Each structure stands twice: as C-alpha cells, then as structure tokens.
C-alpha cells in the first residue's frame, strides 16, 4: 500500500501528484451554485417563481388548454393538497424504501470497492471497463428479467437501484482515492502511521469531496432507477402511480406525482450540497 512511497520524494509546487478531477461532476460546481445569500435575493427568487407559476396558470386558462394536455397549476396544487396523505404518501414511502435500501447497499459496496481497488492499479485496470459498462447501461432494462426471477416484491427494484447507484458512487470515489498526495502520506509515515491510520487520516479525507460528489450523483441515478423500475415492473410506488394516472387521464394527479419526484430530486441535491459544504469546503 505504501509502495508508491518507497522511493519517491514528493515534488512540491508542481502539483505533480494530485491528479486533476475527472469525475462526472465536481465539487466546485456543487459549491458555487449556492442558494439565496440574503433576503433580497430570496425575495427575487420567490417573485420569479410566482411569476412562472402565475404565468402558466394564465396561459393554461387563457388558451383553454384541455386538462388532459396540461392542468392549470391551481388544479395540481389542489390535487396535491387533497390527495397527498391518502393517495400519494403510501406510494412515496414505497419509493423511498426501495431507493434507500438499494442506495445503501450500492453506495457502501461502491465506496468499499473503490477504496480497495485503487490500491491495486492493475486490478483497477481490469475492473474499470465493467464498472463503466454498469454505469452506462440503464439498469431499468434488467428489471423485467429480475421480476421474472424474483417476483413482484421489492427485491428486483432494490437490486436495480443498487446496480445503478453503486457504480456511480464507485467511479467517483475511485477518482478521489486515486489522489495520492505523496507529501501527506510521507508526513503521516514519518510519525509512524500504520496503513490503517494513513487510510483514515489521509487517504479518506483527501477522497471525501469526490466521494460526496459520487454519493450525490449515485442518489439521483438511484431515484431515476427506482421510479423507472416501478413503471416497468411494480404495482406500487410513485413510478407506478405515474402509469396509473396517465392511463386514466387524471392529469392533475399525474402532475402532482411529477412535482413530488422533482421535490425529491431537489431534496437530494440540497442534502448533498450541505454535506459538501460541511465536509468538503476545504476543497474550494
């Protein structure tokens, strides 16, 4: 593990050892798109949002857009208000359960695998094409097959979510773990650090910003896959509701589900934005 330290005197000032970020996204992008900084900004954001929603309402009503094409925002709001607890909430819970389970499994395996595999450059070369294959293949495609084998329970969907989020987390985390800063490893080693200490006190913190990016991208992919899997092979969950309401042309309900899904996505972003701010702000 410390083999790269064998004979290498770290080159300072050239940034030689720290590999440039090649992740799908990167932390600075996360850190820069902030939220409102003060009440004035907040007010403007709010006004614009009201303008957009109000404008939509006016257009839909003014041009008599039929409800099956696009319901007025007020109708969607009403549907959300009345149906959220009785109709949507149970399905939201199902989706969240699948998402969380699959994500926890996928993400933990992803981080673990990244931490191990980056220690063995050759093994990494062998494994990476398959990981890329997993990243680029839509896991929803596997769901019908999994349903055939495992039935209509939540397992096929959990597996699909894990397979979608895991490789995402892994590929970004691996980028993080590959950032070996020889000078910092040498520093730890000069105090007699063990391999484990070097991992927990240098390698992991150094990788953390990229791990967080991976976790965020993985969570979003997980959400997409969970919903997709529900559309393809499930009798419950928000994805299933989308199919159900659109087949009955209950568009206000349909759009309510879309808004819930969008909110979930934004929530994921916000959570990781704060995690990044708290644990990886040194990066910026």
């Amino acid at each position, binding site marked *: 593990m410390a083999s790269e*330290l*064998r*004979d290498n*005197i*770290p080159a*300072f*000032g050239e940034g030689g050892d720290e590999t440039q970020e090649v992740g799908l996204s990167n932390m600075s992008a996360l850190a820069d798109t902030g939220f409102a900084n003060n009440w004035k900004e907040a007010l403007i954001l709010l006004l614009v949002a009201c303008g957009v929603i109000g404008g939509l309402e006016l257009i839909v009503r003014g041009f008599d857009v039929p409800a099956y094409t696009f319901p007025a925002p007020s109708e969607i709001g009403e549907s959300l208000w009345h149906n959220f607890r009785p109709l949507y909430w149970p399905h939201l819970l199902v989706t969240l359960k699948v998402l969380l389970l699959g994500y926890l499994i996928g993400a933990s395996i992803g981080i673990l695998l990244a931490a191990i595999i980056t220690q063995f450059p050759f093994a990494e070369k062998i494994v990476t094409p398959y990981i890329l294959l997993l990243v680029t293949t839509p896991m929803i495609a596997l769901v019908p097959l999994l349903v055939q084998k495992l039935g209509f329970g939540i397992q096929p969907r959990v597996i699909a979510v894990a397979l979608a989020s895991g490789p995402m987390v892994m590929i970004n985390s691996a980028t993080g773990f590959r950032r070996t800063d020889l*000078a*910092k490893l*040498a*520093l*730890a*080693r*000069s*105090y*007699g*650090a063990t391999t484990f*200490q070097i991992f927990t*006190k*240098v390698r992991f*913190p*150094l990788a*953390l910003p990229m791990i967080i990016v991976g976790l965020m991208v993985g969570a979003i992919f997980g959400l997409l896959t969970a919903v997709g899997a529900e559309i393809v092979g499930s009798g419950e969950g928000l994805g299933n509701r989308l199919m159900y309401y659109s087949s009955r042309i209950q568009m206000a309900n349909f759009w309510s589900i879309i808004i819930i899904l969008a909110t979930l996505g934004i929530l994921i972003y916000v959570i990781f934005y704060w995690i990044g701010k708290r644990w990886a702000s*040194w*990066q910026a």
Partner: protein
Amino acid sequence: MVQAVSRSESPASSQTSGTVLVEHATKYYKTNTGSVHALEDINLDIKKGEFIAIVGPSGCGKSTLLWAISGLHDLTSGRVVLDGQTVDGPRPEIGMIFQEANLLPWRNLQQNIEFPFEIKKVDSKPFQPRIQELLAEVGLSGFETKFPRELSGGMQQRASIVRCLSFDPEIILMDEPFGALDAFTRDEMNLLIQKLWMETGKTIIFVTHNVAEAILLADRVVVLSPRPGRIAHIFDIDLPRPRTIEETYSPPFIEKIFEIKDTIIQGEYRPDHVAELTRQVAGVARGIEDQFDGK
C-alpha cells in the same frame, strides 16, 4: 523561551541523544530505463545539537540523503545510525519539515498541530502549554481555528514548524523548507529557526540550495558534488551566534559564500581557485571604488 520538554514526558523515545551517523551511504534508483546513481559513499558524523546544512546543485542527491536519514527511504548500501541504532524505518525521535508546509487542508491549525499526537496515540493535553508557547513564539497565537487556506505561505510554514516541534523530536530534518517563500519571509524564517535551535538545542539537518542561508544557519555546511552525490567538502562555519541578516554582507561571510559556491561549481574544494576568484573580484571592486572616487 521554548525549552525542550523533560525527557520523561517526551513522546519521542526515551534516553535519546540526537546523534546521527551516516556510513558509506550509497543509493541507486531503479527506473524503467535503467538505474540512477544518486549517492556515492557518503560518510557523516553529526553530533547532538549540531546544525548541519547540506548544499549542492539541483539533482545531486540532497533529498535522497535526507529521506534516507529519515528512514522513509532505503539506501542501496551503507547505513544510517541514530544514537547507536541502525535506522530501518521512520523513527519517533525524528521530525520532518517539508518544502511546503504540508498541512492537511481539512484540518484547522490546532488539529494540524495535534496530528502527530493522533498518529502516535499520545494524549496531547500535557503538551498544550508547550504548543501554546510555540504558537506564541512563531506569532500564530489566536490563529488556532483558522484553516490552512486562510493563512499565508509563511504562516503555514510556521505552523508546520510548531507541528514538528510540538512533540519534541531530537532530530529535525528540513528539505528546502523555505524554498517556496519570498526572500523577506525567508530571512524572517531563518532567524526564527536559528532562535528556536539555540533555545532547544535540537540536532538539525537542513537541505537547501541557498548558500547564504546555509552559512547563516549552520555549524557545518556539507557540499555535495553533482550526481552521484559525494561529499565534495565540509566547511566549518565558526561565525558567532546569533547571526544576523546584516552579517551576511560581512567579509568573513562573503568569503565563505565564495568558497562554498566555487566548491559547488567545481565539484571539489580548490583553495587556489577560490583565491584566484577572490583576487579577480577584489580587482573589480577596486575599479568600482576608483570610479566613485572620481579618479
């Protein structure tokens, strides 16, 4: 004044004394294209509390020698002996200061200074007064909760000095510690190092390519020849202490600079050559003087 912590409470190993012996140190680096002969038969006997500077042209093996002494890298043949014990890995009585401050950017200053204690699994509480004293000494009191990116390069390097001294190592190894700093900050840091060294009596081995810096600080300046690094000559610097920046312009100081620079260029010490050079420069100086006198 920062005093060495008494032996009993020092986390560095017990009855240490801080002598360093380098015997027939030879190093070949293996590379894809063959091997690089970096060091050839280096012999050094460094006493406790001595300040040694190692100078030489770029790529002559200064870092290689220092890292071998630290126990972080192996020698191809020969050995390093600390207080009678052959070095075969990192040693608790050694502290390293790197070219850049090498602070961990995700830790604030206090957490950075406590890093060695964490690694060594030593409670840092008894050392807090010492850490506070050191921080005051280097002018960083009140900056404990600042993160590295909030500090200037000089401040970061001072913090790394505190980190190194906090656990009271017997021997301090520095690899071009101030190379990345501007000239003024560098002078400041050199005076600080001299002061800390005079107060604590540590053994210091200091690698630099700046000859004036080496003379300012060291008891002995070791000049290495171009690769493979051999000892070209060892110069005793018996100028009184504490030395000041102004003294770097004094005749005995400049004489030393001449000798050492010429040795670096020639790869060996040639008093006749130095004398010839001195005569030439003296001639130039006289010419300038004459001009000023309007003759």
